[in-house]
């Protein structure tokens, strides 16, 4: 994008219009790549999170049962 900007002064008006359009498209593509990467991570985290949540629920139930059995008189 820096290279594209540095070419501006050598371009005609029509070429500048096309260059600006390129510039916008490149920028939009960059934004899209960025969002794609972040949302991919988010989806991956959600994917793992849901799976691990069920494990955690199981461990929590186990812990509750064990804590009740070993409560030591505390109610």
């Amino acid at each position, binding site marked *: 994008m820096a290279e594209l900007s540095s070419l501006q002064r050598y371009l005609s008006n029509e070429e500048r219009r096309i260059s600006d359009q390129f510039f916008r498209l490149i920028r939009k593509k960059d934004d899209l790549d960025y969002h794609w990467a972040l949302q991919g991570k988010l989806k991956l985290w959600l994917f793992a999170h849901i*799976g691990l949540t069920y494990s955690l629920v*199981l461990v929590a139930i186990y812990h*509750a049962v064990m804590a009740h*059995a070993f409560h*030591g008189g505390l109610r």
Partner: protein
Amino acid sequence: MNRGRLQGEPQSQYDRPNQPWVCGHAAEGNPCPLGPNGRGVCRVPDDCSPVLVNERWTCNRSAILGGTCDQGPTPEGKCCCRREPCQPKRTLRSQRRRFIFGCFALTLGVLCIITSTQMRTTALAPGPLSANHAQLLNGAKSEEKCAACHQAGTVHFVDWMVDTVTNGGHLNESQHQRCLKCHDKSIPTEFALRPHSVAPSELDILTRLAASDSKKNPFQKVSTNQSHNISELACAQCHKEHHGAHHNLAALTDKQCQTCHLKSFDSFADDHPQFRNWPYRHGNRLRFDHMTHAGKHFSKEDKEFRCNDCHTVSESGAMLLVDGYSQCHSCHGSKIESSLASGVVFFGYPTIESSLVSQASAPKQWPKDAQFDFDGEVSDFMKLLLASDPAAHFMLRKFGPGYSLTDVDPDDPQDVETAKRLVSAMQAFSNELALQGSQAIQNRLRQLSATVNEQTIQAFSGSLDGQRWDQIRQRWFGGQPAENHRASPTSRWSANDTAFQLLYSAEGHGDPVLQAWYEILMRTTESADADVRSLSQYLFEQWSSPTAPGQCASCHDVRHKEIVWHNAKSNRTEFSKSFTRFNHQQHLIQPQLRDCRYCHQLDRSARPTSAEVSSDRHSSGFVFISKTQCSDCHTKQAASSSCTTCHRYHVDLPVGDAQRIVDIRREWNTKVLAAGDNATTR
């Protein structure tokens, strides 16, 4: 709810998020319209199913797939746009479900392995034990480690589940029962779980006492409701285990104390009540007056009054104990021995008129030289033992408990008759002694009072030899030459042939027979028989005199319900548990505190304890210690001002002690008021 299609979004017939499989061509943007079946097998569909119209095969591809194709169906009526079979892929939802199931199964498997193997002892432990408890588990098998303290450790996970469902109905052994299997010596088990390990009745008394000081006492807001409602406090409520080897299990925070003691307590100096009569409120059970000894007795003997001569530091250094009688002996020993030098008359024949001997039921059983006139005393021991014989009661009733043969008027027939009954009773007892020895004494004591314990009876009767007594009295009856006779060098029984007396030679301080004699007198004063009761009370008064043989009552308080022969402080153990504790050793580090008088200042205005004969406890003769003596150092920043620095939670308060504390407080308040009145008068 379908979100609808966005503007510009390419049309697609392939939104199947709930299906487990997706077409393998979907990633290329060209999924087949039918997609794979439920088992993930590609169905390879044609774009259309040509229809025969007017004997010509016509394409009927839908508009979504591009409408009728240019080539049209084959002459055989098959679609010309056949698709390549794909390798269907799982949808994200399906992959997620598999992942969840995998995680769940893995976790469950790990938990099952942990629970069902010996690994659970270490894997499930929430943390390492404290050093003391860890030592208990040394050498224990892996599966026994949890079970040492937890009943759940002995059973399987299924039982834990059942217990959870039944809300504790399955595992019925409380943990405190296991705690008390080891800690039954240090904590009274009956009330171990009650607040302060004190009986509810005692705690109620103390709570009311605290509430009565509502204007001054910051503990006034002891939550009476809570103290009544708390039936049991589990050990684990305060003692948190599994916090590592160096964790202090006994540590309590001030906030924990203030769960019941609701009043906020920010600083010792500002919020703690003034000391009342600490640490001397319990007083001495011995009549020992420090002030008199220091200022009078020791100075007269030109001796230095040093605290360390009598008080020794306990093994742990926590307490200063009284070093028993050994220090007293140098002055008191000779006085006690001189009071006992002539022996204590156990049995004596007073002189009576000779005519009475011939009238008595057993004539000639009276010393020949003691027959001429009514004269002489009946010994105190004899009086009490004869009281078990109704014949002796006539003398008691006629002349009172202080009777003697001198009181008898030989010209009064009634007096003579009364004396005759006494003589008969004495002769009967003398015969019993000759036949049964000490057994005769024991039998008479058992008749007198059922409350005298057997140990006391045995101690009092000693080792009197009946045969020896018979020889002695036969010699007296026959008028043989007088001799001072002792049965053997070790025997404490001797005969005075001149006075016709059987004497007991006490061994000096701590003589068991004299101690038993006081105990017997104490019990017989509560006898149901009025004659015995009045006699015992009279004898008790006589023997309570500081000049009585042995001088026991000059130091020991024999008026108390339980006679204290040993100073309680000398027997006090490290485990005597009151609400307040004080460790001398920690304080003696400071040079100025090594002089006991820095804290324990003699009260020069105190009355001598010998004057306090009506009190069952005696002043130590010290000025009460004030709070400011402690509050200089006991701050949050210095020597700590938390509750448990000086106070115990578990106390050993026998039933009845709470009322005693109330009485002591009341007595102290009365003294303070009296002192205030005197000051005002002056």
